């Protein structure tokens, strides 16, 4: 099967700044693909190139088998795009926004109601309200409805869950799973690592480079070293002590604990506790844990930086 999105050797420079550095990526039809990386990693640049809003400096990209530069008209008719910032008309009502985009694409809400029903039905009670007066979660549903109104085959979502509360986020990912069932290829970018597990496959991106592409399980299984969570009351002092430990491989702060890996193959946690006690950290606790996507991301980032 031909890939829905094919990217090869894609680079984008803004003057001196390299937003994307020779990116290669292939996304299969019907896949829910996550682009995971921190702010400024190049996620938005990549999505904007695929959405035909930005010209690449080098390399090629195709969506649905068509080149994004040459056949942008075809792509625009067949894709849905939701920018990171809410960009519908604040002074038009929910219904007016929907019918505006439906008309532009030469269709009507009724024609595609079945595809957007699940999402639109949630905001339909407010259809006479101005878009600017909607809550964050409702704005997002409206934007998604507008992006879907013409039955796109591909959907690009640029950080759709940034600035949205936890409940709405979970709901939103549920909607994406349902859209996938309609056979729509979805490329979604997010800075939240916990959302990575909800994708079929993910690409970890940092400073314009793709660090790894795999299923969330595959990414996690790439984590080679045993991982430990270390806790203590004085977290800052703990982190400093861990980083200065001669056998430390990595130590990153995660919530209330510090995730630690050791350089040695046979690592006895007791030796670390003894060391910490010598450093003045008396209440340290240590336990082995399962690595998550974020751990992999940090490890890959560290490896990438030392190899450059």
């Amino acid at each position, binding site marked *: 099967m031909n890939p829905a999105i094919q990217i090869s050797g894609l680079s984008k420079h803004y003057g001196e700044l390299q937003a994307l550095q020779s990116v290669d990526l292939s996304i299969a039809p019907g896949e829910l693909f996550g682009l995971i990386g921190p702010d400024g990693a190049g996620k938005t640049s990549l999505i904007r190139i695929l*959405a*035909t*809003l930005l*010209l690449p400096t080098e390399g090629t990209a195709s969506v649905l088998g068509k080149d994004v530069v040459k056949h942008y*008209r075809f792509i*625009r*008719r067949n*894709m849905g*795009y939701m*920018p990171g*910032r*809410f*960009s*519908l*008309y*604040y*002074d*038009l009502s929910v219904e*007016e926004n929907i019918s*505006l*985009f439906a*008309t*532009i*694409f*030469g269709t009507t809400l009724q024609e595609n109601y079945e595809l957007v029903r699940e999402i639109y039905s949630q905001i339909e009670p407010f259809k006479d309200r101005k878009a600017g007066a909607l809550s964050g979660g409702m704005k997002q549903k409206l934007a998604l409805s*507008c992006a879907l109104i013409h039955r796109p085959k591909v959907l690009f979502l640029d950080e759709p869950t940034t600035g949205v509360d936890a409940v709405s986020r979970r709901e939103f990912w549920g909607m994406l799973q349902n859209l996938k069932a309609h056979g729509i290829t979805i490329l979604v970018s997010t800075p939240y690592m916990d959302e990575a597990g909800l994708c079929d496959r993910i690409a970890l991106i940092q400073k314009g480079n793709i660090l790894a592409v795999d299923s969330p399980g595959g990414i996690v299984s790439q984590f080679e070293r045993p991982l430990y969570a270390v806790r203590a009351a004085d977290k800052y002092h703990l982190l400093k002590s861990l980083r200065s430990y001669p056998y430390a491989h990595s130590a990153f702060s995660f919530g209330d604990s510090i995730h630690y890996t050791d350089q040695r193959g046979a690592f006895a946690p007791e030796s670390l506790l003894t060391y910490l006690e010598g450093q003045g950290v008396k209440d340290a606790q240590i336990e082995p844990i399962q690595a998550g996507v974020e751990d992999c991301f940090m490890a890959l980032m560290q490896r990438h930086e030392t190899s450059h």
Partner: protein
Amino acid sequence: MRTIRFLLFKEFRQIFRNRAILPLIFVVPIVQLIILANAATYEIKGLKLYWVDHDLSASSRLLYSKFEASSYFEITGTGFDKRAGEAALMRDQADILLEVPSNFERDLMREGSAGIQLLANAVDGVKAGLGTAYAQAVIGGMNVQLLSEQRLPALPTAGGRPAKLDITFSNWFNPHLDYKTFMVPGILALLVTLIGSFLSSMNIVREKELGTIEQINVTPIRKYQFIVGKLMPFWIIALFELAFGLVIAKLLYDIPFVGSLWLLFGFAGLYLLVVLGIGLFISTITETQQQAMFVSWFIMMIFVLMSGMFTAIENMPGWAQQITYLNPIRYFIEVIRMVMLKGASFNDIQWHVGVMAGYALVINALAVWNYRKRLS
């Protein structure tokens, strides 16, 4: 076509929902026509005159009475000391100081001429210029009277005008030299320009600022559809404003309208293409409404001041007159005055039509070209 119609629909809906713009569309023409038409006049009345008389003769009294009778002057001080008059000038208690020298009457009788000194406060240049001109007219009037009474030898006077020559004149197209007749068409032209340039440029930039243009750009909407959809509402609103303004002008001031209404609206429609083109161009070089506002304001300021509305173009220095050929408002003000007051026909304004058509073509091509370039 369906898309454009729908976009127009959407724009009008947004404009009519905008609480700042809608009232403005109706308030601006009324305020401009009521306030500006009455306030913007070149006539100056009640100039403050300080009178210094060293002669105290019959002739100087005659001159004094002439100034007193003139509605242009108000004698706010008299004295025998020029320095007191100068002090009044300094304190803004007088605009003009007139000094009659001693031996004024004697010189006048004996030599047929005598000097009078006029000192004008030229902080306001227009006032000083008009004030001295009015004063000269009053003094000229006395010359004529003295000549006809044969109190002076019948020699050509300082003005070089033989006393026997009698000039009569009439003011065509504005018989009573009413400034309102002259100003109102100009104000209407400004009104149309204001709507066309400010509102249109801000309207496009607003989409950039809010990011909505991003969502529109990924749809199959063609650039020309978007631009037409954005500019057309202001074309319609500006023509509506012109009609609205003409009605007010007729009701309030009974300004004559001798020419063809169709010709005026036809030309206004063409002129608006130029103004909207300028608005579009401004929107391509700016990112925020604030920037667009500032650039429009700067351009409008120059265009308005050099439009011939406040200062006659013929009075400008040669190089400035050349510049006014680039100013679209100049053409519109000329045409609106010609058509409204003089009843000019299409043949009379051919040249203006040609220039505006060329201008519209160039500015819109430039704007569209710039619009495309910025996008990639």
